[in-house]
């Protein structure tokens, strides 16, 4: 159904000859290098890599690691519990489809709904508003996401387009601070970074310039077609070989140096940054967005005084915490595809369609396809 005329702009990014050529060039460079670990921090990149089997097109000494790229996997169980408490108090909760099935300490919003609570899944904040105008019921929007999602709410809040009786439960997290956190923690060795393309359309390529400057490793802002990812890998290897780490914007067709100024302005006006908990990771400095004082009347936390106890973040045996940080692969988890499957998920990485476990489960469940076909 991908019509040629509407997507012709993208066709070349799946050109098989080009991809093969890049693959060969990567092989040539990789021969001159030791083991290279490249991390990306975006669920969509993991999707492209696994879906198109790109790991199989890379030499054995080049590893692609999935970092914390799934915004719903890293929402602490505690915040899911808050949404569940709200919905059980008789208030409707809107949220995204991915968040719907993520477990809190006891249950998920999907479980709450099967017990009769009023949970509505929406595609975007504008859909929630549309539904709210129709039903006019006291509701809360459980808002999760990275830098890309926050402006979609901020724009409506800033322009006073939020209807009465619709409150916000913000659980946004930011990828730029988590990247700084990962790069400064000593137990993960990374030789190059593929920066998240869509986050970058908002924050701008410039937001990542600290990577080569402070950590001294190459960084490439990449798009989501197979050729984009292959070119990013190629360019990272080349910079390593030359010993000149830089920031390269491969996704210049969508990402500018300064990003989406309108969106950034809205976010700055409506939210402030605070330290935030990440599921499986812990507290990360200035990584969370909360509503500013003058918008407190929209904040479900202050208006409804929700209070929840803390509980376990993961089920026993689940290795999501390591998988989110790129320290382990789904296949390292003893439960993967045994006790834990997309139909019976045991941890957030399997629940969310952007979680690494779920993506691996859907498109094979192994790292390199040729093992399977051999």
């Amino acid at each position: 159904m991908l019509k040629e005329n509407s997507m012709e702009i993208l066709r070349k990014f799946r050109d098989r000859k080009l991809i093969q050529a890049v693959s060969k060039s990567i092989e040539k460079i990789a021969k001159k290098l030791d083991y290279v670990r490249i991390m990306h921090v975006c669920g969509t990149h993991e999707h492209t890599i696994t879906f198109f089997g790109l790991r199989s097109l890379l030499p054995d000494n080049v590893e692609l690691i999935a970092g914390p790229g799934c915004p719903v996997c890293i929402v602490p169980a505690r915040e899911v519990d808050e949404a569940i408490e709200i919905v059980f108090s008789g208030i409707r909760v809107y949220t995204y489809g991915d968040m719907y099935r993520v477990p809190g300490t006891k249950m998920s919003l999907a479980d709450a709904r099967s017990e009769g609570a009023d949970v509505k899944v929406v595609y975007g904040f504008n859909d929630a508003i549309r539904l709210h105008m129709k039903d006019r019921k006291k509701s809360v929007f459980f808002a999760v996401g990275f830098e890309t999602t926050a402006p979609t709410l901020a724009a409506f809040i800033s322009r006073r387009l939020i209807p009465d009786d619709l409150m916000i439960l913000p659980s946004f997290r930011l990828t730029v601070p988590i990247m700084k956190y990962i790069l400064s923690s000593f137990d993960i060795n990374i030789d190059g970074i593929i920066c998240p393309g869509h986050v970058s359309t908002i924050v701008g390529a410039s937001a990542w310039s600290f990577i080569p400057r402070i950590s001294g490793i190459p960084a490439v802002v990449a798009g989501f077609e197979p050729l984009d990812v292959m070119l990013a890998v190629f360019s990272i290897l080349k910079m390593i070989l030359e010993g000149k780490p830089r920031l390269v914007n491969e996704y210049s067709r969508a990402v500018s140096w300064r990003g989406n100024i309108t969106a950034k302005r809205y976010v700055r006006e409506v939210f402030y940054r605070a330290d935030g908990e990440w599921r499986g990771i812990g507290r990360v400095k200035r990584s969370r967005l909360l509503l500013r004082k003058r918008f407190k009347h929209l904040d479900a936390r202050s208006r409804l005084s929700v209070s929840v106890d803390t509980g376990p973040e993961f089920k026993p045996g689940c290795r999501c915490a390591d998988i989110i940080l790129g320290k382990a692969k789904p296949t390292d988890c003893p439960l993967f595809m045994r006790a834990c499957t997309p139909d019976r998920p045991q941890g957030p990485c399997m629940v969310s369609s952007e979680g690494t476990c779920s993506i691996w489960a859907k498109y094979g469940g192994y790292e390199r396809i040729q093992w399977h076909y051999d």
Partner: protein
Amino acid sequence: MLYILVIIRHYKAHSKSFYLTVQYRNVCLGVPAKIVKLLDKNRAIADFGGIKKEISTILLPEVSTGDYVIVHAGFAISKLSKREANEIIASWKEVLEVLKST
């Protein structure tokens, strides 16, 4: 070599469904679309490779009909530049050529 072929076949077979899976399963992803009609109140109709859907242009006020955009959770967040898309490929092609001949 054989496995490269297998993989190419693998993604050729799947590539058509790629955006559709991405678009309807995942809320937090971005997908390319073409603006086919501008509506009032910062709204527009976008064409996702054959499927038309209303989106918000509040984050991209300068958008006009015929533009390609990246849509995230129902909002256009960035314009796709055709010129950049062509130029970037051209620039990489050169790199590859140089590499092949060495």
